[in-house]
């Protein structure tokens, strides 16, 4: 039976169990003449969950695990057929078997091994499918029987359903957490492999970045240099420029909107600014590359400065504009959360409006503002598109914002586009960069959370 057919059956069974459970508990209660503990809905839901819950989980697990198992068995089979396949040849053979099995590969391109492998694979698949259908059917019917056997007027179906929902929520969050852990672990392991090829110190403190790998063993300069400092310096410079633009403008517009603007203007301006956040970054990217950068270059030429047409400044300025809505909208929220009674208190003491804002409102909102800024920094650090388009890809170690620089994220893209060997230093370097980037943004977010929790006032 196909997966979709099984699913439909399960849902059908669930619906049936629900209504059957409801009817049954009604009959039981009438016969027993006692007060029913839980409402009919819960008895029905309980039976349905018993019938469908476990089979659904098994179905999902089967979908996840059986391909792995089948692959392992197929590999084992091929190995037995021809013991001297190399690792690469084995990979090709497996791919061919599956392609032939699914009909994507014409028979002309196959050999004896592939055909026998395919036959074996077909056998495995059908065995697995049959086993699955039998298991699911048994589990579903068993669950239904179990659920029905539990039904009784005094049976506490309501808390039982509650527990099932509890478990479902827990599983969902466990999946979210485990995926995150999985991603981080894979980052860490690949990074460790990278450090087998390139020393940690060379990576963290090296001043030169040119991740070229030799095509031939005797190629000049083919060893590649993996010093990440220029990338982090570039990232920091662009982020810094972006913050110089975004923090003052974002903060002041937040203050204006929340403290000075009348409600009508606020109702129009706030969503207006938030639209900026919805513009795809690639649009900002070509805005930076095609308008801001040439404008900077031309105005530089007017005052006698030779500027490159790709510069950290152009990327930083445009990134700053992109970040403004983050800062203004988050700050606006925290400023609004400062209770009106504090403003009244200051006004009643004779403070002017700007004194009240500077001395009472902003200090009270500061933790929120700081965390807004830190979140905006993480956002800026992770931004790629604008930088590729406006700041270039050349890893210059420079403090001059008019020169072209590159950032960590851009280099990760550069390392991974095109055909790559998965275990070359060049590819693995992307994982190392990713890990460092992850650690930096993680740290920023932790600090932001800490600041908010540590300094948050409890207004009730």
């Amino acid at each position, binding site marked *: 039976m196909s997966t979709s057919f099984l699913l439909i059956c399960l849902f059908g069974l669930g619906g049936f169990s629900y209504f059957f459970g409801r009817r049954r508990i009604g009959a039981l209660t009438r016969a027993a003449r006692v007060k029913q503990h839980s409402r009919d809905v819960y008895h029905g839901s309980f039976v349905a969950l018993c019938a469908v819950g476990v089979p659904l989980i098994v179905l999902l697990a089967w979908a996840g695990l059986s391909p792995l198992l089948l692959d392992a068995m197929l590999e084992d089979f091929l190995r037995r057929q021809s013991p001297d396949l190399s690792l690469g040849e084995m990979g090709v053979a497996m791919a061919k078997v599956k392609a032939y099995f699914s009909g994507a590969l014409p028979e002309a391109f196959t050999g004896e091994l592939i055909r026998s492998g395919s036959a074996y694979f077909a056998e495995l698949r059908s065995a697995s499918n049959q086993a699955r259908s039998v298991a699911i059917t048994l589990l579903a019917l068993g669950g239904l029987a179990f659920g029905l056997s539990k039904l009784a007027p005094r049976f506490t179906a309501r808390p039982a359903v509650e527990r099932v929902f509890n478990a479902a929520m827990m599983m969902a969050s466990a999946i979210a957490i485990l995926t995150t852990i999985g991603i981080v672990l894979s980052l860490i392991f690949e990074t460790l492999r990278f450090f087998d090829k390139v020393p940690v110190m060379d990576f963290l403190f090296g001043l030169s970045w040119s991740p070229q790998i030799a095509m031939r063993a005797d190629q000049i300069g083919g060893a590649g240099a993996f010093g990440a400092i220029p990338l982090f310096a570039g990232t920091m410079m662009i982020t810094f420029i972006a913050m110089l633009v975004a923090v003052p403008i974002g903060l002041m517009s937040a203050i204006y909107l929340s403290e000075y603007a009348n409600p009508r203007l606020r109702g129009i301006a706030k969503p207006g600014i938030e639209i900026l956040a919805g513009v795809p970054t690639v649009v900002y990217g070509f805005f930076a590359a095609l308008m801001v950068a040439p404008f900077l270059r031309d105005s530089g030429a007017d005052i006698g400065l030779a500027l490159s047409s790709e510069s950290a400044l152009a990327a930083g300025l445009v990134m700053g504009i992109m970040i403004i809505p983050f800062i203004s909208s988050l700050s606006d929220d925290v400023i609004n959360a400062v209770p009106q*009674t*504090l403003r*009244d*208190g200051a*006004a009643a*003491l*004779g*403070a002017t409006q700007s004194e009240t804002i500077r001395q*009472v409102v902003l200090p009270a909102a500061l933790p929120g503002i700081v965390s807004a800024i830190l979140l905006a920094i993480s956002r800026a650090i992770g931004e790629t598109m604008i930088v590729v388009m406006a700041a270039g890809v050349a890893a210059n170690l420079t403090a001059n914002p008019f020169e072209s620089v590159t950032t960590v994220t851009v280099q990760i893209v550069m390392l991974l586009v095109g055909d790559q060997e998965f275990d070359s230093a060049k590819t693995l370097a992307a994982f190392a960069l990713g890990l460092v980037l992850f650690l930096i943004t993680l740290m920023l977010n932790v600090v932001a959370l800490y600041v908010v929790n540590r300094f948050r006032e*409890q207004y009730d």
Partner: protein
Amino acid sequence: MTNIENPKVKIKARNMTVHYGDAQALHGIDLDLNANEVTALIGPSGCGKSTFLRCINRMNDVIDGCRVGGSLSIDEQDVYDAAVDVVELRARVGMVFQKPNPFPKSIYDNVAYGPRIHGMAQDRASLDALVERSLKRAGLWQEVKDRLSASGTSLSGGQQQRLCIARAIAVNPDIVLMDEPCSALDPIATAVIEELMEELRRDYTIVIVTHSMQQAARISQRTAYFHLGDLVEHGQTETIFTTPQHQQTEAYISGKIG
């Protein structure tokens, strides 16, 4: 103690009207408030007590769509005159709110805030002295003298309210307005603040809004009864509570309307 029979008029309201947008909240209030007395404003919710209180320090100015008419003078000087500096006025008329609203700053900075913005202390030492004096007068000094740098919001509700009183009197006002200052406090904290008001009356003119008849009877010399934006009756507290002239007043005081 001031002579109750012949006191000095401090605040004189004549035909005060207040509109919030189209809704009229006060319908021409005429009321004299005496210096060095506690005047209690009582009446059912929404009758305009807070609105009247905010007329005295012009806190209605900051409310969108609020219009004030009539005249109100303090020491014979019109508060709504175009030449009056609101900042200066509010330094003369302190206000304590219903819910304690200490700034999220240290206890010291809370009290020092007013003196600082009005430039009332020349140096650190005199500011220290001013803060200490204000906290003492608010009856809070003993409890906080060892932790002046702790956050004002870390105090208990009653302490916070006394901190707000200290903050208000630190700028040395003539008048202190209190809008239900005890409504968020427990009976013990309330008793402390009531005692404090008796004490403060010597130096300040106090106007207090309260919903507690007992409190009004205990602490005030005069009482004004508001109803639906009108001043129904006012006079010596004793008279109002024993022989009210209006049937409405009597009904409210005896708990028949609230």
